[in-house]
């Protein structure tokens, strides 16, 4: 689902539907009673800057304190070191050298969806960063493949009940000349493919195609692709979708069950 919201005043009806959809996703996650919540997202050059651009980073800390951007409370919440380290070791045997991060102050890309779906930080989390803000982002094919590695790790090596949340925006051209444009056709294409069990087709896109059709910030759909790859044949349903030029983005959320 999208990982941020904006002031409701400009479009109260749409905002109410988006917020209700996010709360519905929270309700469904709560009802699954997970042992671990993995949120795939991106940092907005707060923790990982252009000084060193790693494509994939997982948080391995015991605890996180949000950065506090956008007024998000700096309330600590628990991490999952043993799971995270186990995944990094597993991925290294499966063709992925994933970076480990001990010190992350999650910005809104992680902290807001976590606040919505995991109130009180009751479920330990694993921050999974797909660095689409990099000058050279990872390809959708690699993102899909890494989602498959996570699936293999969970199904072969672990006993926990795990929820994977892909948290990122659909089409938006933040701080680009096209800012304000929303490509509803692209957004609905992404949602349609994933909920019909054809998410793998999105792995055939290039980063350049996503930038063209969804904007640079629309590369955040990689997080949706990653989450879909952890349940590659699952079908699901659209929980909400709103094209919102008022918020300069398409807003959406879906649910997949293996």
């Amino acid at each position, binding site marked *: 689902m999208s990982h*941020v*919201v*904006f*002031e*409701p005043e400009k479009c109260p009806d749409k905002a109410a539907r988006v*917020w209700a959809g996010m709360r519905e996703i929270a309700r469904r996650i709560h009802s699954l009673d997970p042992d671990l919540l993995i949120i795939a997202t991106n940092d*907005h*050059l*707060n923790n990982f*800057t*252009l*000084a060193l651009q790693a494509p994939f980073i997982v948080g391995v800390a015991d605890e996180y304190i949000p950065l506090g951007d*956008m*007024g*998000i*409370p700096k309330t600590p919440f628990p991490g999952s070191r043993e799971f995270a380290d186990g995944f990094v070791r597993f991925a290294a045997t499966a063709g992925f050298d994933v970076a480990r991060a001990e010190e992350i102050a999650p910005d*809104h890309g992680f902290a*807001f969806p976590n*606040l*919505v779906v995991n*109130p009180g930080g009751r479920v330990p989390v694993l921050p999974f960063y797909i660095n689409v*803000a990099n*000058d050279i982002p990872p390809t959708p094919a690699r993102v899909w493949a890494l989602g498959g590695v996570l699936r293999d790790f969970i199904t072969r090596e672990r006993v926990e009940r795990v929820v994977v949340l892909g948290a990122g925006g659909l089409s938006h051209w*933040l*701080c*680009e*000349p096209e*800012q304000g444009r929303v490509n509803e056709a692209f957004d609905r294409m992404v949602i349609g493919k994933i909920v019909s069990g054809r998410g793998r087709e999105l792995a055939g896109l290039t980063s350049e195609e996503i930038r063209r059709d969804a904007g*640079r*910030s629309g590369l955040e759909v990689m997080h949706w692709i990653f989450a879909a790859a952890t349940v590659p044949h699952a079908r699901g349903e659209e929980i909400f979708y709103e094209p919102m030029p008022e918020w300069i983005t398409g807003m959406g959320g879906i649910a997949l069950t293996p």
Partner: protein
Amino acid sequence: MSPAPYRVHRLIQDLNRDPRLVVTFESEPETVFAQYGITDAERLLLREGTPRALMELGVHPNLQMKFLRIRRAAGVGGGPSPLASYLRDLAQGK
């Protein structure tokens, strides 16, 4: 649109992390520009500091947001959080 040179991005990244640098930048911008090797043409656009100027310079979108926020904060304050009403809902368990 070509990306801005890394020196421009490095300056904004450091401003985002270092409140003392922000204070120096507010009072002695030319000194800070010189420290980061910012050219005259780049200084012109950063001094203008509008979304159009930052786009023309090729500043990364996330860093445009930070530079605009830093300049706003130096003027009239950062403004309310766009999440305020939602955070109230969550805090009240709605």
